[in-house]
């Protein structure tokens, strides 16, 4: 049996607009191994969350999966019916959203929401449900007394922990997370990241972690995919990608974070702003903001080429292909 748990093949997602459809995810492919931690980073509007929703089969109109396959544990999830999806969700894969306050039901206690989830998946015995609920709360380090609490009685950090506990209720093989820490303060954020990583090591589930903050996943992900305007522009193992970023966009992003370590250096950021998805530049999408642009960049849409330890969507690496 292969070690691949998820195989995303050439997916395209479009949003219907009054004019041209906006293609938020444009021919994205990657694979994920069992127990692997993949970080997906990019700026707002780059399609990272849309891609996550496409993988989790959570897209709702006006977003639509136009083509591509999502093979999860050997089965194509695209086109599965509601009932079939419901049986896989939570049990085989679960989703942790950005805002726990919106994802949790405000009029039900945490324990009641855990119970709903488990009953929907055929766990009928109350004693078993209670025991498992206490177990997952212990996993995320929250006193089981809070099973009786309502979401508003918990702090932001605790709510996100509850969401993660809920995602782990049925021991899934894959947990997809959409900016689960972005509403938290840095100390809470750091603590939650450490906890996610610990749980992942202990329980062995795979993680897809979407964030706009590249520095956040630096110590936690095994691999990293950088998205820009609907495409993966660089993908590779996390440490080499941080140590020697290849794509001009990745380099620009890394040079946009001031550091608290080392000497103070003048940073430049990246000039301009991300493109409008309904009005993309020809050729390379990063071309208008790129410091190393060449005339050919306007003519040829670059592919992903090997670039050191990573692969980059940039003509600078074309001859090595």
């Amino acid at each position, binding site marked *: 049996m292969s070690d691949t748990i998820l195989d995303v093949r050439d997916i395209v997602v479009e949003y219907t607009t009054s004019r041209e459809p906006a293609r938020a995810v444009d021919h994205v492919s990657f694979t994920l191994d069992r127990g692997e931690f993949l970080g997906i980073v990019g700026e707002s509007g780059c399609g990272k969350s849309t891609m996550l929703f496409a993988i989790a089969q959570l897209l709702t109109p006006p977003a639509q999966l136009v083509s591509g396959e999502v093979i999860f544990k050997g089965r194509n999830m695209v086109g599965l019916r509601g009932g079939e999806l419901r049986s896989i969700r939570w049990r085989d894969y679960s989703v942790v959203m950005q805002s726990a306050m919106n994802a949790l039901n405000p009029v039900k206690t945490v324990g009641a929401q855990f119970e709903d989830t488990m009953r929907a998946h055929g766990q009928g015995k109350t004693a078993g449900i209670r025991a498992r609920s206490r177990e997952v709360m212990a996993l995320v380090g929250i006193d089981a007394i809070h099973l009786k609490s309502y979401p508003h009685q918990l702090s932001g950090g605790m709510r996100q922990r509850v969401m993660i506990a809920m995602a782990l209720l049925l021991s899934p093989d894959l947990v997809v997370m959409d900016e689960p820490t972005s509403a938290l*303060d840095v100390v809470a954020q750091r603590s939650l990241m*450490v906890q996610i990583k610990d749980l992942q090591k202990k329980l062995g589930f795979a993680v897809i972690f979407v964030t706009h903050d590249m520095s956040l996943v*630096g*110590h936690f992900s095994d691999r990293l995919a950088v998205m820009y305007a609907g495409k993966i522009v660089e993908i590779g193992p996390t440490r080499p990608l941080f140590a020697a970023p290849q794509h001009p966009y990745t380099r620009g992003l890394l040079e946009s*974070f001031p550091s608290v370590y080392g000497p103070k250096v003048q940073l430049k950021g990246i000039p301009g702003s991300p493109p409008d998805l309904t009005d993309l530049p020809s050729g390379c999408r990063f071309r208008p903001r790129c410091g190393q642009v060449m005339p050919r960049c306007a003519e040829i849409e670059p592919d992903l080429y090997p670039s050191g330890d990573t692969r980059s969507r940039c003509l600078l690496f074309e001859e090595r292909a």
Partner: protein
Amino acid sequence: MDRNDHAPLLQTVGLTRHFRIGGLFSSAKLHAVDDLSLTIRPREIVAVVGESGSGKSTIARLLAKVYEPTDGDILFRGRSLHEVKSRRDLLAYRGEVPMVLQDPFASLNPVHTIGYTLDRGLALHQPKLTAAEREVEAIRALEAVGLSPARQVLAKYPHEMSGGQRQRIGFAQALSYKPKLVLADEPVSMLDVSIRIGVLNLMAKLCAEEGISFLYITHDIASARYVAHRIVVMYAGRVAETGPAEQVLHHPVHPYTRLLLSAVPDPKAPITITAADTGEPPRVVNPGPGCRFRQRCPLAIDICARVTPDLADTVPGHAAACHVTAPQAGLAA
């Protein structure tokens, strides 16, 4: 010229703001800011760093006279803000100390052009200018923040501009009043990562070239270090530590500052992963005496629960409020 040679531009003395919360008969008070003494000198960027609920935005609103203080005073160029009462004085003060807001998508009126927005502000805060002078001033401000061609920008509507450009409009508006001090409340937190640095560089440039001081309010201590001369670290409504930016970064004294620095996501950081502190928020409703960080503090001792620590200098200009790491003279630890 050394910044220390100047008289303070703005100074707060024991500035305090409490909010009454709860029902009609509730006596619960939320201590948003307690006993703040802050000095901003000419040509200086001071960063106020803290997590949500630490009182940092309340400080900006007090200085902008959006809130009145519960206690204490604010002196702007030596004059108490209690004396600023008439509409004319208030407009003049807000022209000298304008505010740049966090959300560039909500802070510009979508039905008016940029030109109208800038002109309207100038008409209020610089009433002596003629319409033609106002336009010259608006164009100067747009060019100073790097928006060109300025004349075309004047005719645009907010929706025609990107987030980074809109935030620059916020700065242009503040700049057009020829301010002495700009209150910037999280001006980059809503912007994309690749655009933030440009706005921070703009603040540094306006300070260096136009001599404007900034109060930069942020939750991001790395960006505070990048742009500010001095850093004030807030915790639960009180100053935990204050000093020159590099000094605070490299020799943090207060345990909270150390915790904050260890939690900054930074790929250049050494990989020392500890999750002992889960970042639970402090109690700011009727907090009582004692250090507000003590429940989370690895160094807490008996006195921390009884006596609220005052700021004490560790070296001149660098102070922390901690009984253990910066003990005050006369108080036995």
